[in-house]
């Protein structure tokens, strides 16, 4: 090989002498390769098998030394454990009683016991917080052609979602929301335009006995329909820039008891592949004197002893992943000032199909108000349908919504008839940031239709 390299060198020199027009790059390449060739050849020519076997021997010796050290460390750890471990940890007890053979005095067990951090001790450690906080927020530029409205940048709700695993069976969950702007309760405006306020929107302690029975106490989003318990106060989660009108919050002109304070039970119903679930709630319901009170959600004092009830059933059949079909019945007795009591029933039904890249939401409900002593019942029907499909980072969507309240409706005479389509495009700029552009057309009874445009950035952090 050496000879052949030398002869190549000679041939190259001969060629170089005889042909001065050889391109310079070829010469440089050859020179470079020939320059490194002795080194490479030297690597190959130095009895490789002997060198490798020596290296292997050295490595094996080194491995043996390291193994001996590890064994020594294990013995020391075992000794330390023996000296310290007068009181065995619960997990260690479980281990002894477990069916696995030879689970004591092994190095792996020693490593494992080092990792043990009893949950109870962790929970009692006052130097650590058990809170987990996730945030959601949005900022919107919006405008419309309704008289008196002005195009504005708006800070949306700053939503802090706080949870804590209190124990294996108990969990705390809350949503603390900072939001600006005036409230609109059944058409009555209160508060200042640009002042922020804090609302505790959810505040729950949950007990999970098993999958068939969970009990929660506190303030929750009422299980009327689907939307209310699917998106809560996070704009980032929802596809569109805003909630359907039917599910607007109480302080944003909404007509439903979105929040309630009381007790809620939920869980699975043994139903095999049908996947039936139930939710049963009893709470204070919504204040019926809302225009005259500070807060439509009765957080502390109910205006009456009668309680509101809600029962929801829904199915998530195993055969069609992403499908949820259900209905709910809500009952309350309203006690407005200077008028007879009103029996309130809200019947809702939904069929939604949600997959990561596709959603089709359909919900319909009717709010029935029957003033006691009168034969007339006021029905306010409403529905919405929303469909969207993900194409990479883009998600176009369409929504049509409808609500039709009587002008003589005793509780929310401001609602009337409103219906129309919305079209929008959501762009997921990152895993945690979405930019949405939405156009709304809303037809109103005896008023001009409203065209609105909104550009929103929603995010989680």
């Amino acid at each position, binding site marked *: *090989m050496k000879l*052949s*390299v030398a002869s*190549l060198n000679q*041939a*190259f020199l001969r*060629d170089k002498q005889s*042909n001065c*027009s*050889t*391109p310079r790059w*070829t*010469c440089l390449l*050859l020179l470079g*390769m*020939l320059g*490194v*060739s002795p080194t*490479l*050849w030297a*690597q*190959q020519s130095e009895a490789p098998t002997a060198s490798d076997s020596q290296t292997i021997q050295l490595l094996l010796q080194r491995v043996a030394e390291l193994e001996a050290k590890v064994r020594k460390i294990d013995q020391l750890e075992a000794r330390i454990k023996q000296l310290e471990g007068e009181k065995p940890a619960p*997990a260690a007890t*479980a*281990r002894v*009683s*477990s*069916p*696995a*053979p*030879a*689970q004591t005095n092994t190095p*792996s*067990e020693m*490593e*494992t016991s080092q*990792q043990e951090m009893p949950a109870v001790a962790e929970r009692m450690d006052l130097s650590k917080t058990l809170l987990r906080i*996730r945030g959601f927020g949005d900022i919107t530029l919006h405008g419309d052609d309704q008289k008196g409205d002005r195009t504005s940048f708006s800070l949306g709700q700053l939503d802090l*979602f706080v*949870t804590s*695993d209190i124990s*294996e*069976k108990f*969990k705390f*969950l809350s949503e603390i929301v900072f939001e600006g702007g005036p409230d609109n309760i059944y058409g009555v405006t209160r508060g200042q335009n640009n002042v922020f306020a804090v609302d505790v929107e959810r505040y*729950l302690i*949950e007990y*999970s006995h*098993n*999958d068939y029975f969970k009990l*929660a106490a506190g303030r929750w989003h009422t299980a009327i329909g689907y939307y209310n*318990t*699917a998106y*809560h106060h996070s704009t980032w*989660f929802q596809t569109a820039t805003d909630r359907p009108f039917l599910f607007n919050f109480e302080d944003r002109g909404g007509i439903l008891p979105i929040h309630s304070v009381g007790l809620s039970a939920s869980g699975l119903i043994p139903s095999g*592949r049908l996947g039936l679930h139930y939710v049963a709630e009893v709470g204070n319901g919504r204040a019926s004197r809302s225009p005259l009170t500070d807060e439509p959600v009765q957080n502390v004092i109910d205006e009456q002893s009668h309680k509101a009830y809600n029962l929801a059933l829904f199915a998530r059949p*195993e055969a069609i992943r992403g499908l949820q079909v259900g209905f709910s019945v809500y009952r309350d007795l309203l006690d407005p000032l200077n008028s007879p009591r009103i029996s309130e029933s809200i019947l809702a039904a939904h069929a939604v199909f949600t997959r*990561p890249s596709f959603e089709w939401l359909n919900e319909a409900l009717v709010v029935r108000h029957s003033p006691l002593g009168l034969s007339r019942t006021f029905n306010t029907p409403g529905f919405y349908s929303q469909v969207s499909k993900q194409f990479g980072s883009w998600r176009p969507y369409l929504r049509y919504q409808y609500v039709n309240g009587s002008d003589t409706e005793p509780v929310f005479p401001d609602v009337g008839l409103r219906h129309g389509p919305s079209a929008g495009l959501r762009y997921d700029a990152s*895993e945690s940031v979405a930019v949405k552009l939405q156009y709304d057309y809303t037809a109103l009874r005896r008023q001009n239709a409203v065209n609105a445009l909104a550009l929103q950035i929603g995010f*989680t952090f």
Partner: protein
Amino acid sequence: MRLSCCLCILVALALLPGVLPRGTLESAAYPPEEKPGERNLAIVVNLNNPVENLSTPELRRIFLGERGHWPNPYGRRITLVMLEPGWPERAAVLSIIYQMSETEFNNHFLHGLFTGEVFVSPKTLASPEGVRKFIFNVPGAIGYLRESDVDKTVKVIRIDERLPDDKGYKFHVPLR
């Protein structure tokens, strides 16, 4: 010109074995030995868990967080253990069980926790050793390991009545 090109090629061919990284040569000469069961993904639980078998839909519900507790009488809260992103085992689970991307997986659990339907978020660990230790210590834990990473500190359960070595077992993972 032609001669110099030929010479270049000849020299390059002559030097090729020396230029190649030694590992390449060694791996060609001594291909890495595949450990038995290295391609099988075992579903593992705590040794005290009496569950022996799960159907694929049941397993999927558990991994999605739709089931929060093991059936009675064990009744323990289910704690799902995931390896960190980047592990082939995790990629296999996302593909086979979740049928989701990483982003969809994260959104699923974030949304589930937000709605309250998922009681506890998955525990993410850095290595198979960590998974073994965690499952060993947490009675309600469930996770996944290569069969070659399984030892006596965890219990392998059957999926659709099949163990990882059985014919027709569905959960496999590429070699590392």
